[in-house]
C-alpha cells in the first residue's frame, strides 16, 4: 500500500427502519456521525476533511445533498468530497476517505454514507426509462433474478440454498441492535413458504428498504498511536469496474470482482483468503449472491459456493462467517449499505461487534458491489498494523 498507514478509530451507524420519521436527512446523518465520533473520542472540530457517499440523488430528490449537509456537519471552511459509484458507493466512499489519509494529505478524515429511502420512491427512481437504454422497469430484483437462475443452472445448486442464506442472515440480525429486521423465528421450512417475488428470489431472500446512515473516522498512524481506543488498520483497498453488458460477459462471476479480490489479497499479503480471513461482511442484497460471491472472491472453487452454504461454512460458528451483522438482507439503506459492510468488518477486528462478534477476529473483509454487478469496492482491515 501507500507510504502511510491508516486506522479506523470510530464506527457509527443509525438505528435502521423503513421510515425514520423522527429525523430529517441531516438528523439521520448526524446520528451516525455522532456515534462514530463518540467511539473515537473526537468531535467535528477535530476533523480535517469529510467524504460523503450516497446512491442516486433522485432517491431523496436532493441534488448533490452534501452541499446542503455542510452546516449539519460543521464543515464550512473544510474540504467536503462527494462520491457516487452506484451500489458500491458506501465501500468506494470509505476507500476514498482512507486514501485521503494514506496519501498523507489529511490526518483525521470523517466519512459518512446515507440513504433515506422513505423520503422518495426507490423503485420508481431505479426504473426511470432512459432513451436508447434497456428498460428494466423491474427494480433490482427483476434485474438480478435471471443472473441467479444462470448460477443455479451452471452450478447445479439445489433450490433451497437461497432460503438457507436468508434464514442465517435474518437470525444473525437478531444479535445486531442496529439491524432493520429483527425476526428470530425463521426456519428453512417457513422461508420456503414465503411468496415468490422474482423467480427464484422469494420474499425472505430479498433486502428490505431502509432509512439509515453509517460513518467512520479514519486517522493517520501518528494520530492513531496516541489514541487509546480500539483500532482497525486498513491493510488494503481495491476497486474495479467493467461495462454493464456485452456479449460473453460473465454476469454470474464478473471478472472485475475476481480482479478486485486478487488485487486486494496481493496488497494485503494474503495468499490463502479462506485460511487467513476470519470474517467477511459481503454485499448480499439477494440471498443467492452469497454463494456467487464465495466463488467470485476466491473462497470457494467454481460451482462450489452453494456447498459452503449447505455445510454451514458461512454461519457465525463456521470457518468463514459471512455477514454476522445480518447483512444487506436485514438492513439496506442503499447508499450506506456498503459503508455498513466496511464498518462492520472494522468492528469485528476492533472487538466492538457485541453479540455478533466473531471471537478472535484479526482480519476482516468489507465488500460492496453496484450497477449490474460491475462496480466493486473492497477492503481488508486487521487488528494489527499491516
Amino acid at each position, binding site marked *: 500500500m501507500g507510504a502511510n498507514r491508516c486506522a479506523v478509530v470510530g464506527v457509527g451507524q443509525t438505528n435502521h427502519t423503513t421510515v425514520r420519521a423522527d429525523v430529517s436527512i441531516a438528523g439521520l446523518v448526524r446520528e451516525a456521525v455522532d456515534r462514530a465520533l463518540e467511539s473515537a473520542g473526537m468531535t467535528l472540530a477535530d476533523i480535517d476533511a469529510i467524504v460523503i457517499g450516497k446512491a442516486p*440523488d433522485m432517491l431523496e*430528490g436532493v441534488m*448533490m445533498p452534501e452541499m446542503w449537509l455542510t452546516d449539519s456537519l460543521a464543515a464550512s471552511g473544510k474540504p*467536503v*468530497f*462527494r462520491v457516487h459509484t452506484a451500489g458500491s458507493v458506501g465501500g468506494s466512499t470509505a476507500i476514498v476517505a482512507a*486514501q485521503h489519509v494514506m496519501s498523507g494529505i489529511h490526518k483525521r478524515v470523517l466519512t459518512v454514507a446515507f440513504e433515506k429511502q422513505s423520503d422518495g420512491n426507490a423503485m420508481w427512481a431505479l426504473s426511470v426509462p432512459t432513451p436508447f437504454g434497456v428498460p428494466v422497469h423491474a427494480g433490482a430484483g427483476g434485474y438480478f433474478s435471471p443472473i441467479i437462475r444462470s448460477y443455479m443452472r451452471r452450478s447445479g445448486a439445489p433450490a433451497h440454498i437461497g432460503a438457507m442464506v436468508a434464514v442465517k442472515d435474518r437470525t444473525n440480525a437478531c444479535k445486531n441492535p442496529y439491524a432493520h429486521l429483527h425476526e428470530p423465528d425463521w426456519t428453512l421450512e417457513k422461508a420456503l413458504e414465503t411468496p415468490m417475488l422474482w423467480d427464484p428470489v422469494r420474499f425472505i431472500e430479498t433486502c428490505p428498504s431502509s432509512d439509515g446512515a453509517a460513518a467512520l473516522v479514519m486517522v493517520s498512524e501518528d494520530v492513531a498511536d496516541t489514541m487509546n481506543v480500539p483500532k482497525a488498520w486498513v491493510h488494503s483497498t481495491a476497486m474495479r469496474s467493467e461495462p454493464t453488458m456485452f456479449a460473453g460477459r460473465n454476469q454470474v462471476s*464478473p471478472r472485475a470482482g475476481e480482479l478486485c479480490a486478487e488485487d486486494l489479497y496481493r496488497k494485503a499479503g494474503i495468499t490463502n483468503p479462506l485460511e487467513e480471513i476470519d470474517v467477511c461482511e459481503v454485499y448480499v442484497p439477494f440471498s443467492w449472491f452469497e454463494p456467487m460471491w464465495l466463488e467470485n472472491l476466491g473462497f470457494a472453487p467454481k460451482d462450489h459456493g452453494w456447498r459452503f452454504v449447505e455445510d454451514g461454512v458461512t454461519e457465525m460458528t463456521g470457518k468463514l462467517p459471512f455477514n454476522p451483522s445480518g447483512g444487506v438482507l436485514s438492513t439496506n439503506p442503499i447508499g450506506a449499505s456498503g459503508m455498513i459492510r466496511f464498518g462492520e468488518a472494522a468492528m469485528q477486528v476492533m472487538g466492538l461487534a457485541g453479540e455478533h462478534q466473531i471471537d478472535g477476529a484479526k482480519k476482516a473483509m468489507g465488500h460492496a458491489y453496484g450497477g449490474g454487478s*460491475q462496480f466493486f469496492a473492497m477492503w481488508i482491515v486487521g487488528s494489527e498494523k499491516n
Partner: protein
Amino acid sequence: MRDVGIVAFAESQLTYGTTNTPVEMIVPTVNEVLKNAGIERTEVDFWCHGSCDYMTGQPFSFVAAVDALGAWPPIIESHVEMDGAWALYEAWVKIQMGEANVALVFGNGKSSAGDMNRALTLQQDPYTVAPLWPGLTAMEGIGACAALQAGTVTERARRDGAKNGNVLVSGSESADELLSRAVTSAPFRDHDLPAMADGVSAIIIAAGHAAKRIAKRPAWIRAIDHRIDHQNLGWRDLARSTSAAIAASEVGVHNDKVDIAELHTTFSHHEQLLINALQLRTDATRITPSGGALVGNALMAAGLSRFGHAARAIFDGTADRAVAHAQQGACLQQNIVAVLEGN
C-alpha cells in the same frame, strides 16, 4: 508529496441541444485527450468521472459512461457527483498514495436536457428552501446585489471567448453598450448570465517520470485544495468567497507572480469576488483568457475545463505559473484552487 502534472487536455465543441447520449458525447473527447497525450488507454491506471444525475434526468447516469472508456479488461475507476475538477482531485489523491501513475479524468454535462435554473434549486435545503423554487438566477442575484461588478468584466469574457473556438457565444461589444441593454433578471443583463452548454472536458495527469515522458512541458500541480462554505445564503457574506480564499491561501496562490488565472466564473460578478478571494493582481495576471463559463457553461465539465485551459498556457509557454479554479453550488459555495507551474 509526489510531483504530479497535467499532461494533456481536450474539450468538446460546446453546443446547446445535442441529441447525443452522454456516451456518444464522451467518446470523442476521451479519444482526443488520449491522442493529445500520445498514449494508449491501457496505459491509464485510474479513471475518474464527474457528472450529475440531474443533468440527464436519470439515476445512475454515469454507469453508461463506463462504456465510453473501453473498460475491458476491467479498469480501476471511480465517479464523483461533482464537477470534473474534483474527479481530478481524487485522481491526484490516488497518485499521491502511489496507487496510480497515469490517470484520465473527465466531466460531462448536458445542460439542455432540462431547465437548469430550476433543477439547480434542488441543491438547496429540501425542507425549507427548495420547495419555494427560488431558481439559481434569483439566488445569484442576491449575491450580485451584495457585490455588484458589472459590464467590463463580461466584455473581456466575450472578447477572449472569441479566440477559444469551443465557446458558445462571443462578441466585441463595449462595456457601455452592454450596460445600456435591458436588465433581464435584476440585477443581471443577459451577458451577466452563463451561456448554458452541453459538453465534455477531459484531462490526463501523471506522476514524475511518466509526466515527463508524455508531455514536453507538463503543468505541474504544485498544490491543490478545495473548501466549502455554509449553504444558507443568510449565513454568508455574499460579497466575499470565504471558501475560495481559504483554498487559495492553502495552495499559496499569492506566494509568487501569477501569469494567468482561469476562473470558473458562471455569473459575471463572480470574477471580482474570485479576484479578491485569490488576491490576484489584475495588472500582472491575465484573468480567464479562455473566456470561461460565461461564454460556455457545460455543467460538471466547465470547472475541469478551467484546469485544462490553465494547463494549456503552461504547455505552450504562455505562462510559467498559472492558477486553475472551479466551483459549484449557488453563490460560489464550493471552490477548488490549484497552482500549476511549468518549471
